[in-house]
């Protein structure tokens, strides 16, 4: 019994102890659970906080991305506008200008549909010039819709106004609602194309992407594009006009050139006939002249008997005039020969100074008679020229004789020379009466004589200077005169090195 009682007591105590230990364990566990719960709560709070922060990050990130997207869109738009402008400016063909608006440019601007119309004033209707993003039937449908309410569209051109999905003008509200229906687009920009002259028109760009939100930037880009199209049309039309007028001008020049060539050919033929005529007449004249001069000379010798004084005087005249006539006929024949190329210039190296001196010797009597000083200002070592000696001497004789003829007594004649770029220039200056300006151009023409006192007194054929000109030109040179009434004349000519 005692053992049972002790066992009971022990069991009781043990149970009690176990309960106490269990309670302690439970309490501890409870503490742990509470701590874990608290930790969990803390973690949840942290997660919630983190989530809140994540929300802030996401919202900020979204804003940043939208700004970036807008910026990207603008940069892309500007970039493609620049490339499109460059493409448009490469053509001066009106028909090609609108065709430059290719699909990829439009896409970069944020659109996929476009069409352009020009107003045909005589026909009083719009004409379709370009379409992208529409099939032909759709574009034709749009064109007919536009023409059925053309006044509204013409007003945009007249008012130089751009209409778009974001236009806020109440007066345009109804029209703004119609445009997307006509063009089958959710968002659009419709801008006038306004060249200063000729047909004006409209450029439409649009998208049926419902997510696209147009802004002022888009509207402005399309307006700039429309302006550039207007400018390009203007340039093309101006170019076309200029080109046509140039073509007309070229045609006229061609026609005139043809006329002139024909006239020149005629003149050359006439000139050839004249030369032939002079040549044959001169030949015909020379034979009887030779006889006349021969008989006159025989009569003057007195071999056929003495001649009365008055007959001798008249025979003298016949003889002198015959000489003049022979001289004249010879000159004419020479001119005709040179003109027709029948006389070949026998070129040889000549010393200018020696020739000038030789001719001055020949003319010394006339120089002395009029007390004219002849100055030959040609250096000893002046380059020798290549020319036909006898012809060149005739040039000097003619020019110096003329100078002597028109230089008053005690006057001065200077013969000088200098090298030019491609040859030699010779100047023969006198202190004579000078040549009127009006006569300067004609002086080298055949039979032309300046109307002055000297010519009225002294006889001449009017062939000397013409012959000189022909000889100089046959050597490849040029001849001209500088003169002023009362200040003398300077005859200058050039002979090229390779002459």
């Amino acid at each position: 019994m005692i053992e049972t009682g002790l066992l009971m007591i022990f069991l009781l105590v043990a149970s009690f102890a176990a309960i106490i230990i269990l309670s302690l364990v439970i309490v501890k566990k409870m503490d742990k659970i509470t701590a874990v719960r608290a930790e969990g709560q803390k973690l949840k709070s942290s997660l919630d906080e983190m989530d809140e922060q994540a929300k802030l990050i996401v919202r900020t990130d979204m804003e940043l991305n939208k700004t970036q997207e807008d910026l990207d869109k603008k940069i892309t738009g500007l970039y493609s506008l620049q490339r499109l402008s460059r493409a448009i400016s490469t053509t001066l063909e009106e028909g090609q200008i609108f065709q430059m608006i290719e699909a990829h440019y439009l896409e970069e601007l944020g659109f996929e549909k476009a069409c352009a119309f020009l107003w045909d004033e005589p026909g009083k209707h719009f004409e379709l010039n370009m379409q992208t993003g529409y099939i032909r039937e759709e574009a034709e449908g749009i064109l007919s819709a536009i023409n059925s309410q053309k006044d509204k569209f013409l007003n945009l051109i007249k008012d130089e106004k751009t209409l778009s999905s974001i236009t806020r003008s109440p007066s345009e509200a109804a029209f703004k609602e119609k445009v997307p229906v006509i063009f089958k687009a959710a968002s659009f920009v419709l801008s006038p194309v306004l060249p200063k002259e000729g047909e004006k028109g409209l450029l439409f760009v649009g998208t049926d992407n419902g997510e696209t939100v147009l802004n002022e930037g888009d509207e402005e880009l399309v307006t700039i594009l429309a302006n550039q199209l207007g400018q390009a049309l203007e340039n093309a039309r101006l170019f076309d006009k200029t080109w046509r007028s140039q073509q007309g001008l070229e045609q006229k020049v061609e026609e005139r050139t043809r006329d002139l060539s024909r006239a020149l050919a005629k003149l050359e033929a006439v000139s050839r006939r004249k030369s032939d005529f002079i040549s044959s007449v001169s030949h015909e004249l020379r034979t009887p002249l030779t006889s006349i001069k021969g008989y006159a000379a025989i009569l003057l010798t007195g071999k056929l008997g003495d001649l009365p004084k008055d007959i001798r005087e008249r025979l003298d005249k016949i003889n002198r005039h015959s000489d003049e006539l022979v001289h004249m006929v010879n000159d004419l024949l020479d001119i005709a020969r040179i003109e027709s190329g029948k006389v070949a210039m026998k070129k040889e190296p000549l010393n200018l100074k020696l020739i000038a001196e030789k001719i001055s010797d020949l003319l010394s009597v006339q120089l002395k008679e009029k007390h004219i000083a002849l100055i030959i200002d040609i250096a000893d070592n002046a380059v020798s020229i290549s020319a036909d000696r006898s012809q060149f001497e005739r040039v000097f004789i003619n020019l110096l004789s003329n100078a002597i003829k028109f230089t008053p007594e005690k006057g001065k004649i200077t013969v000088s020379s200098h090298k030019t770029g491609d040859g030699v220039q010779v100047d023969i200056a006198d202190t004579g009466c000078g040549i009127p300006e009006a006569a300067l151009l004609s002086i080298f023409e055949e039979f032309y004589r300046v109307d002055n006192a000297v010519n009225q007194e002294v006889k001449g054929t009017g062939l000397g200077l013409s012959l000189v000109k022909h000889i100089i030109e046959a050597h490849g040179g040029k001849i001209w005169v500088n003169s002023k009434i009362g200040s003398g004349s300077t005859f200058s000519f050039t002979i090229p090195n390779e002459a």
Partner: protein
Amino acid sequence: MSINIGIGVSALKDHIEAAKDAVVQARVNLRSSKAGLAIVFSSPEFARPAILKTIRSLAGSAQIIGSSTLAVLSDKGIHKHAIAVLLLSFPDTVYYNSACVNNISLAQGGRAGEDLADKLLYGFKNIRRDLGIIFSDGLKVPGSDLINGLQEKLGRSFPLAGASASDNLAFKKTFQYYGEEVFSDSACGVIWGGKFNFALGIKHGWKPLGKPRVITRSSGNVVHEIDGEPAVKVYQEYFSFDLARLKKELRLISTLYPIGLRIPGEKEYLLRNLLAIEDDGSIICQGNVPAQSPIRLMIGTKESCLEATRLAALEAKRGMAGKNINFVLVFDSVSRYILLGRRAGEELAIIKEYFKDTPVLGLYTYGEQAPLQSANYYGKAYFHNQSVAILAAGGQM
């Protein structure tokens, strides 16, 4: 033996001329080899049988597969409104077969996948198959369903890389090319076997943000509830937008902040774009979203996106471990194109950095198919969004 390849890209306005131009360029690069397979990527406007007939007439008896794309990626750059032709000439030691299934939406994705697998396996009875490439209409059938069907027949760990064809961001109609025909609502593909090496790199670059959540109710590609509340509430809370504003900004939100699915046993998150928000607060995703999946909101930047491209290229290159690389195919998400904007070309430049003179051809997709962890490419293939999948391939020497 090397695989001879030739790539041609053309953006000529006349589509037939462009197709001719692309094939002629490709044939020049292919030299005298006979093309056995032609892979064609083009902008949607090129999707006409006449184009494929032109290619066939110039490329001989080559099998033709391909798809439409927002833009073509190639060594020549990124081209919208263009056509690209990749001509491949294989040595006798490489086996391949292409096939196509139509009306995949009628057959349901899974069944269509199985049908396609059956056709692809034709002639591969005693030959080990190595890799499959699929182009499908992701607008008609969720890419995930198609993969599941393909894997039923090809094997759970059979490496698959694929792309859901894209259009010009209208999300209206995509095209698949097979032989001389153009299809929509279709899937076409090719499988390779024999002495054929390949390596795959796939990455997206998006990082998880905010607290983890769980999809508590979903069906197919529709998330009904997250943490017991309408799915859209998560996005409303994060952006502080009402439903209308959220719907309006959906494209940008979907590109920048997709849903990240945590897949058991995988390190990477699988991304899901948001296609639409229903009035009851459900979110329609591009790809299946299994219930009870742990999810996070994901965030990405241009830099993280480009870094991911670098990692994917590196993985593909490392995977080849010095083996012969004859060509590189790139399946790049259109979302990345949108996110990168003017910097889209940098992604291509990064890929070229790793593969130097190896010809590269790629397309933009509405979804990519590939194993999650590319280092272990014999893993289960998933349907991805927002990723860049880079496939390096070559014949065994």
